[in-house]
Structures are given as C-alpha cells and as structure tokens.
C-alpha cells in the first residue's frame, strides 16, 4: 500500500502530515478498489509514471460512483448532434484550475452551435489536449482531469476563504495574487495613501489588493504585489512635482450658509429646468475661475525647460473624480465663459463618463488649475498636492457645523475649511491668500460675481 501511494504522490510536494492523512483514506478505499479492479479497463497506451505492477486506476469511461483520489481521467469530446462531424474548442478553464462536477470546462463550437462540455467530476485540470480554437471530432480526447483534488497543492488562485481545511498546519505556497491570512485582522494590507490628501485618493485602484479573507488563525504572512505602471507613473510625477515646486499651503474657512440657502430655494426649479441637480461644485468652480482671471499668476505655470512663465488666457479646471479604477482628473474647458448651470452640466457629463469608464484622452488632457473635494469622504482639513504641470490646487473639505463668532456673538454655522497649495516660485504669499479669500467671498455671497468685485 505504502509504495503505491508514494509513487502516486511523487512530485506533488505535499507536506508529510497531509500525505499521511491521505494515506489513511487511500488505505480504506483500496480495499473496495481491489474488488472492482477486475471490472476496469486499463489503458495500455497511456505512459504511466508508476511501475506497472502497481494498481493505478485509469478509466476509459466516466466513473460517477465512487470518487477515487487522484485518479486522472481523460475526458472526451461528446458526440455531436445532427450528424455534425467537427467543431472548434474554446477553453473556459486553464491547466491548474479546479472545477466542480458539472462546471463548464470548455465549449465546442460546431456549425453555429455552442456545446458546453461539463466536467464529469470535481477535480483539477491536469492537461489540455487541444489548443484553443483547435478542431475536434466526437470522441477526440479533450482534457485530463485529476479527480477529487479539492486538497491539491497545485497553484490555485482562488481566495483564501476556500483554502482547504485539511491543509491548515502548513499553508499552501501562496501564488502572488492570493490573499493569505495577514497579521492584523482589522487593517487590510493595502499600500498607504499616496500622499497626504492627494486629490481624493482614498480609493485603492487596482485588483492587486483584494480584500483579504478574515484570517483563520492570526497568521503572519506577507503579500507582495507589483506596482502597476499607472501607479508608478503617478508616484514619479508627484515626487517630481515635490522636488521642483516650492509647495506651500494656505488655509481659510468658508461659511456655507448662504450658498446652502440659495440651493434650498432654487434646487427644484433648477432641476426642472436643467434636468440635473444643483450642487456646490459649480459655486467653487465658478469662484475659482473668477479668482483665476483676476490673478493670472495662479493660472500660469513655470516651464522649467525654457525657464519661462506661461500665462494662459483660458481657464481649464481639472476636477478630481474617484472611480473604481482609481483617481481620474477630467477637465472642464473655458470655465471663465460658463455660468453655474453650464458648469453643473459639464461636471455631470464628465462624472457619467467617468463612472461608465468612457473618458477619452481629450477629456483628461491639460488643465490649468485643479479642484479636489476631500469633503465627500468626510475630510476636515488637509493639504492637497499640486497636480503637475500646474501651479496650484484648491482642496475642499467637509461641511461641519461649528460655533463661530459673528458680530460678537456665537452662532452655529455650516463651515468648510478650504486649502490652497501653491508653487511659491511663481505665486507669492500675498497673492495666494488674496486668491483664496476671493474664492471665499464668492462662495459666501455669490452676488459678488454679479457686481464683479
């Protein structure tokens, strides 16, 4: 008994405890196995890696009754209907994938018909005998399945939640994307946020950091995930920006009561006329455009290669949007010509496109100034980082009721902290503060725009 099991398991790299577990099972089964062996047909053409004196069960026909551990069966192309002779194979599963009984392994396309080929039993795909798109006829061997392999040590990229209980003591070697039990149950092992309040960077983009399964027994493994190109590029750009710009941040606070009231009064009529909701972004975007036309230095940028300052006649505002795939920054063009409803429509359209993943390169090109809203995530206060190649960024934060002093009295007002990070090489302190105060003035009383003040 023992010699056979050793041969069958060679090359599987199981740990000793697992083998002994399986050995016991095999011993139990082999008793019944011997009694049926006489009914089995041996495949002589199959090169066996075990000595021929050993009883290895290779079946020609699907065996649906007893499941013998680690039996490798060859599944054949089913007969085709309506006297069709051949079809093309399209693989759904790959070598190493585990399948349950009746799960579709491949589909065969014959003459406008797609025929599903299910797995006859649970197991792991051992080998695909036909390339994808290859032609097969009824009866052609399709693939090899290693049966009963729920505890197989083959690289199985399924989440740790499905990790077999039998393999508890030595965890199976984790392939890169699998989530092994991590040290602390509470904090997921994702990379730290890219930079302090980089515009709306809270969303962890790629599939490289799957939510880890709650660890079974407080394991202490590690999980290395390669940084993708996009993240590398962003990281590089941010560091470049930090190294070239002299970045400073100035703060102020905005009393949101007037704009909230304006919104309350007009939102239904606005929705009816323009078919979109009236939000706060339009106020800030318009305020920023007003302030930027007033102070062209904030709208300008230093061209390091030619040592020139580039002043621009137009105001293109980039709005940071968090999408499931990561942070994208679509641009609203020529904001200086737009009113609140135009801006809301533009933001809405871009937001829709971003949500459906349909933003084109032209939508994200350029921009002279960025606005990022950390407030949607509840941020109170923070320093945004400049989105190169620009010279400044406005960070909006959350609106919270706070006691403030108005005319010598304490009143509760909805207040928002705003932050302006700017490039001090180009914009001096006085300009930055004035700029931010202008934004505050417009948002606190939009009539300022009408009076051009």
């Amino acid at each position, binding site marked *: 008994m023992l010699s056979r099991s050793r041969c069958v398991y060679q090359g599987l790299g199981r740990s000793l405890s697992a083998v002994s577990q399986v050995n016991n099972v095999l011993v139990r089964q082999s008793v019944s196995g011997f009694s049926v062996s006489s009914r089995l047909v041996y495949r002589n053409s199959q090169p066996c890696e075990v000595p021929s004196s050993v009883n290895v069960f290779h079946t020609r026909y699907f065996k649906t009754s007893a499941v013998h551990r680690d039996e490798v069966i060859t599944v054949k192309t089913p007969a085709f209907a309506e006297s069709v002779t051949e079809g093309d194979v399209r693989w759904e599963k790959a070598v190493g994938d585990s399948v349950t009984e009746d799960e579709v392994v491949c589909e065969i396309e014959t003459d406008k018909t797609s*025929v*599903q080929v299910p797995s006859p039993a649970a197991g792991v795909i051992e080998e695909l005998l036909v390339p994808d798109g290859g032609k097969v006829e009824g009866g052609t061997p399709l693939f090899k399945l290693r049966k009963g392999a729920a505890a197989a040590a083959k690289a199985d990229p399924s989440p740790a939640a499905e990790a077999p209980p039998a393999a508890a003591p030595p965890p199976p070697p984790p392939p890169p994307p699998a989530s092994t039990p991590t040290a602390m149950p509470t904090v997921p092992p994702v990379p730290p946020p890219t930079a302090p309040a980089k515009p709306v960077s809270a969303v962890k983009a790629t599939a490289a950091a799957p939510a880890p399964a709650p660890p079974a027994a407080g394991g202490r493994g590690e999980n290395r995930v390669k940084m993708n190109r996009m993240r590398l590029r962003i990281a590089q750009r941010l560091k470049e920006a930090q190294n070239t710009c002299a970045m400073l941040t100035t703060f102020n606070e905005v009393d949101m009561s007037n704009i909230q009231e304006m919104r309350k009064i007009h939102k239904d009529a606005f929705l009816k006329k323009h078919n979109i909701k009236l939000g706060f972004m339009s106020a800030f975007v318009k305020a920023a455009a007003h302030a930027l036309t007033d102070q062209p230095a904030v709208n300008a940028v230093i061209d390091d290669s030619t040592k020139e300052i580039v002043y621009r006649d137009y105001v293109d505002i980039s709005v940071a949007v968090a999408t499931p795939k990561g942070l994208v920054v679509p641009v609203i063009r020529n904001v200086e010509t737009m009113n609140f409803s135009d801006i809301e429509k533009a933001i809405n359209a871009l937001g829709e496109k971003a949500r459906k993943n349909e933003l084109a390169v032209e939508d994200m090109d350029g921009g002279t100034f960025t606005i990022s809203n950390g407030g949607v995530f509840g941020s109170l206060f923070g320093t945004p980082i400049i989105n190169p190649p620009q010279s400044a960024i406005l960070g909006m934060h959350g609106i919270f009721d706070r006691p403030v002093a108005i005319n010598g009295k304490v009143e509760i007002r909805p207040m928002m902290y705003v932050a302006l990070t700017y490039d001090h090489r180009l914009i001096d302190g006085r300009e930055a503060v004035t700029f931010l105060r202008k934004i505050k003035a417009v948002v606190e009383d939009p009539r300022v725009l009408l009076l051009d003040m």
Partner: protein
Amino acid sequence: MMLHLRRTSLLRGWSGVCRCQTGNQPSRNSSSSSTSSLFVAPDSSSAGLVLHSQSTNVYQNLALEDWIDANVDLQQRSILLLWRNRPAVVIGRHQNPWTECNLPAMRRMGIPLARRRSGGGTVFHDLGNLNLTFFTSKKAYDRQRNLKVVTEALRRVRPGLDVQATDRFDILLNGHYKISGTASRLSRKSSYHHCTLLHSADRSALSTVLRPSCPGIHSNATPSVPSPVANLLDHAPTLQWEELLDGLVNQYNAEFGFSSALTLVNPTDESVFPGLSRMETELRSWDWTFGKTPKFSVQTLLDLTDGRSSARSSAQLHMEVKNGLIESCELDVPADWLPRRLSGELVNMLVGERFCPHGAAAAVALLLRSESGELQTRLHHLCDAVLSVMG
C-alpha cells in the same frame, strides 16, 4: 428557487388564457400571479408554450433566454420565445467584436453590442427583425424541424413565397437572399435554437455597422459569413406583424401538436423571473462582451504624418490581446520622430490595460501631461493613432 417550477400542480388555468394581440393592447395575463404559474409542470395537452417578450432591450431578452434555459424543465415541454430588439449588434459566443463590427460607428449611432451565449455569426437586430427561440430538451433538438415551422408558416400566410431552409440552417428568399440566420446552444440537458427573421429591418444601418473596426487583426475566432439580405416586407408588402406572428404561432402548434396561445412576458418582472437581472448585468459587462474574445493579435502600420512636415512617417504596431486585455505590445516608432524613451513609456502604459480606447485613456493622459511642446504634440498624435486601432 426553482421549486415552484418542478411542482406538479392541478393548475390548468393558464391553458385557457385568452389570445393576446401583440403590440398595443396591454396583456391581461401578464400579471405576476398568472405568469408565475406559466412554468409549472404541464399536463399533456399543454406541453408547449409560446411566449412573446415585452422588452425590446437586447440584454434583457438574451438574459430571458438564459433564464429559461437554466430554470425551466424542458424535458417534458418545449417553449417558443418571440422577441424583438431596438437596434443592436449581436455577436456569437466565440467571435471577435473588433473584426465583426464597426465599434466607433456603433458608438456614434448609439447602437449597443451584445455577445450571446450561442455560437454562430454576427447579426444586426432592430425592431424590423423578429427573433424566434425554440427551447427543447437535448433529445428533441432538431433545427431543421424548427426552421420548417418558419418556412411553412410563411408559405401559409403568403402562398407562393419562395422560402427555403438551407443545409447551413439559413432561410433563403427566392433562393438568394438571406432572411434568417441560426445559432444554438446545447447545455447539459436542454438546448435552444434561435433564429432571426428579417421583416423590415434597416438595411443601410446593417451594412454600416457590420464591418471591421480596424485592419490588421489576426484571430482564430469564429468568422461570420456575409450574405446578401432582404426584408420580407419588400417581397410581401402586405404582410404585417400580427399576421406573421399569428401564422408562426399556429404553425408551431401544428408542427409539434401543441395548443398554446401567445403569452406576453416581461423579463424585468423579478417575481416571475427571479435572478434575471443578475444575468442581464453579466451580459452587459465589458468582461463578457469584450473579455470573452479568443486570443488574437493586431499587426498594423500607423500613419504618423502630421500637417507640418512633408516627410511621411509611420510606426509599426504589434499587440497580442488575450481576454480583451493587452498582453504584449511592440511599437516601432522612428527614433528621429519621437525618442524611444517616450514610445517605450507608451507601450508600458498599454500593457495590461483593456484593448479599448477608454481603457488606457487615463494612463495615456497622465503620460501626455509630463511632456510639453513639440514632443507632446507628437506623442499625442501617436497616442491617438494607437487608440484608434482599438475601436
């Protein structure tokens, strides 16, 4: 979830359901209480069922097909489902959408793309096209018999109409024009065979969208076989929808010995079709529609000539795409036109992204922001050329 479908019941009420006129009249039997009894195991006199989908949304209707295939016991009964869609392109299970249809044109025209689960080639659906799906058990799967229902029905409503089913399961009008194409799917125990029927489809839209998105694609995906098409209405100008549908239902009953009336069904009714919206979501997803494309490669020459310089410049592009994602990419750009460093950066950005102009847009935009002046313009030009290859 499927319990109510298998329980035998004494309910015979539905076979007395009144005939429904299609189109304008609201159906009296589409209330959930009576339609949920539709799929109860039948008695022998009602082993066939004729359904007409109220939805004209291609994803909902394809999901309805999947739902019926998965949830109804077809061993003892068969179903004929009639459905029409607003304009859409439907590709077969193992086809390549970039070779089969013109994705940019479809985007401009607002025509969605769907991948069905059955094999076969690409078709254009619109409200002038009727789809028929014959659901049976695997044993009763007989496509020629199903097509006979259609040809016989047509001959009965318009005697003398020359319609013939071919051995490739097309139906030809006057021996030459294709008015129907077929595809089917065989699952473990059940099967469905569906076919189109061109009544009054928009042929100019059809020819606009059914052409490749971009040249240079090499793939072993199932190709479509283009054929000249015609509308029934052009050759039988008085044949209206009602008469056609009635004729088909009658012939279906006659051929298979059923006596079922046309019943309207609403795929969006979760009480009748629990789980259908989940199937619809899967059919809409990018991963299904584009990601299920068999592996292919793209090899093409990009024209980089810009208005300024008179010299012609071009770049060689070679990409391998698997599961709709760019597995590898080689871009050979003349170094005097753009530094290799930049074309290399672009290549790095593209690998691993979806083969779709929007998939890489954010990454490309990021790349463009790092450059300025002439280099940025050229890089922009190159990016545009590469992205246009992706449909």
